């Protein structure tokens, strides 16, 4: 056979190659989209064909997703609760027993004019005892006592402008310096501690979420890896007849998306069930604390975030598996 000028032949053939048997661009676009729909359907069918295995995988992912979500819901509620309480923080002034009830009421009246104090009430020794009996459940034991050990109390609520830790500190100093005031307690201290704990909790939940997300990616990745191995014969044939990497990848990516959607919904259900289960106990607690607080579930925004991250993690895991394992399968 004669060897002709290769560069000349090459450029001639390129033009010819471009005009060879190919469907027109528009038709290919439509076909591309319909292939996406087809692969989404096929991958869903494959998952449903092995319902138990699919359910187990979904459950693993859903539990991993619901754990941080439940903690998140818990923290949101605690955070809300502490804000609720901070607004109503109280300063308690314990009065000396040497002060008579009349003197105590006088003192309360004087304090009323202080601009730092919004609201004020006076509890006499007897009032304090009555309230203690009612709420602490020590009724019987207290009846045994011959003298009332409780001091009279003035309960003061600082105005909104004086709620910062500094101004509360100076208010405390001021109140302590008054004759007849034994001790001053601010309810705020434990609220602040609670808030610090909530902050710690938020960090912990974030850490947990990151770790468990990694777990989800690995679980999905491993499941898809097995799927790729099971379908290696098909992948070989598809590559042999000219399937691009994108074509080969598609069904597996959709499998990941389906895992994400399924597990996301399942996780949402688990979270709502947990909230519902804990709700009755919380309601009881709330009654004990005389609060109008209501346990909040996963809101619409957070639920969407949960679903979205589930889908992203699912397809991410699938992508990872596909990247690592698809290249290795070549026609033989």
């Amino acid at each position, binding site marked *: 056979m004669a060897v002709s000028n290769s560069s000349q032949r090459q450029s001639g053939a390129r033009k010819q190659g471009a005009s060879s048997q190919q469907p027109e661009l528009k038709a290919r676009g439509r076909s591309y989209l319909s292939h996406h729909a087809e692969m989404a359907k096929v991958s869903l069918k494959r998952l449903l064909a092995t319902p138990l295995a699919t359910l187990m995988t979904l459950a693993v992912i859903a539990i991993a997703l619901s754990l941080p979500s439940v903690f998140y819901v818990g923290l949101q509620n605690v955070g809300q609760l502490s804000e609720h309480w901070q607004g109503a923080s109280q300063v308690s002034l314990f009065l000396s027993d040497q002060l008579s009830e009349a003197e105590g009421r006088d003192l309360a009246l004087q304090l009323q004019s202080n601009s730092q104090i919004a609201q004020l009430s006076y509890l006499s020794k007897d009032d304090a005892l009555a309230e203690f009996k009612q709420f602490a459940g020590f009724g019987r034991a207290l009846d045994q006592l011959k003298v009332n050990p409780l001091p009279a109390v003035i309960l003061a609520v600082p105005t909104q402008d004086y709620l910062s830790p500094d101004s509360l500190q100076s208010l405390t100093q001021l109140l302590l310096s008054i004759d007849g005031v034994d001790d001053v307690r601010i309810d705020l201290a434990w609220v602040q501690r609670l808030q610090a704990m909530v902050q710690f909790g938020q960090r912990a939940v974030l850490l947990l979420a990151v770790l468990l997300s990694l777990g989800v990616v690995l679980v999905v990745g491993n499941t898809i890896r097995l799927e790729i191995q099971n379908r290696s014969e098909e992948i070989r044939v598809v590559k042999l007849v*000219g399937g691009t990497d994108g074509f080969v990848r598609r069904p597996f990516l959709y499998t990941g998306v389906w895992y994400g959607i399924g597990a996301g919904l399942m996780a949402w259900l688990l979270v709502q069930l947990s909230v519902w289960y804990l709700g009755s106990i919380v309601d009881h607690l709330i009654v004990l604390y005389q609060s109008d607080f209501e346990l909040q579930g996963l809101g619409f925004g957070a639920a969407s975030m949960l679903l979205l991250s589930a889908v992203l993690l699912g397809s991410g895991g699938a992508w990872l598996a596909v990247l690592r394992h698809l290249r290795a399968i070549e026609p033989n």
Partner: protein
Amino acid sequence: MIRFDNVSMRYPGGHEALGRVGFSMERGEMAFLTGHSGAGKSTLLRLIMLMERASQGQVYVGDQNLNRMPVSQIPYLRRKIGVVFQNHQLLFDRTVFDNVALPLQISGYERDSMARRVRAALDKVGLLTKEKLNPQLLSTGEQQRVGLARAIVNKPQLLLADEPTGNLDPELSAEVMGLFRQFNQVGVTVLVASHDLDLISRLPYRRLTLDKGRMIDGG
């Protein structure tokens, strides 16, 4: 259509499958590739499909230099080549129709024109009535013909076959070979690797003979 310039192929581990092979085939030509098993026939076909790359020398298909072809272009090369294997490589999780439709699906055909082409291809190999069956239910000869239908459904410019009659009795072999001749008559370049010398010697086509990786005749 195909040109090999001094092509050598050495597998990792040192085994030389092809040594300094040179030959070319014109567009529309039909030829046989013969030689004992292990002579390098399959390797030569694999080089044309870019299932392997030559260790030395140049391979041209349709005047494209395959050595310079990036990996991303390989699928598009393979779409222009129909290929038939001895072990037909059919998928048993789908019907005969879907097996044949696979190359069209990949190339982006729409359902209607796809169905038309699949039926035309099945008709050509005489299996139109079996399109809804699973290929597992077919005889070896029929499976081989399904493989052939899949190879030609995209109307390739080049048809390769690796021992396509290896598992068939003489009568079926002659039938399959007849099909290759038909495709060649409508302008397809056909290269058939076979050691069925009985059958080949009765047919009027060029013979490329490989022996221990060297082309000793026809190149």
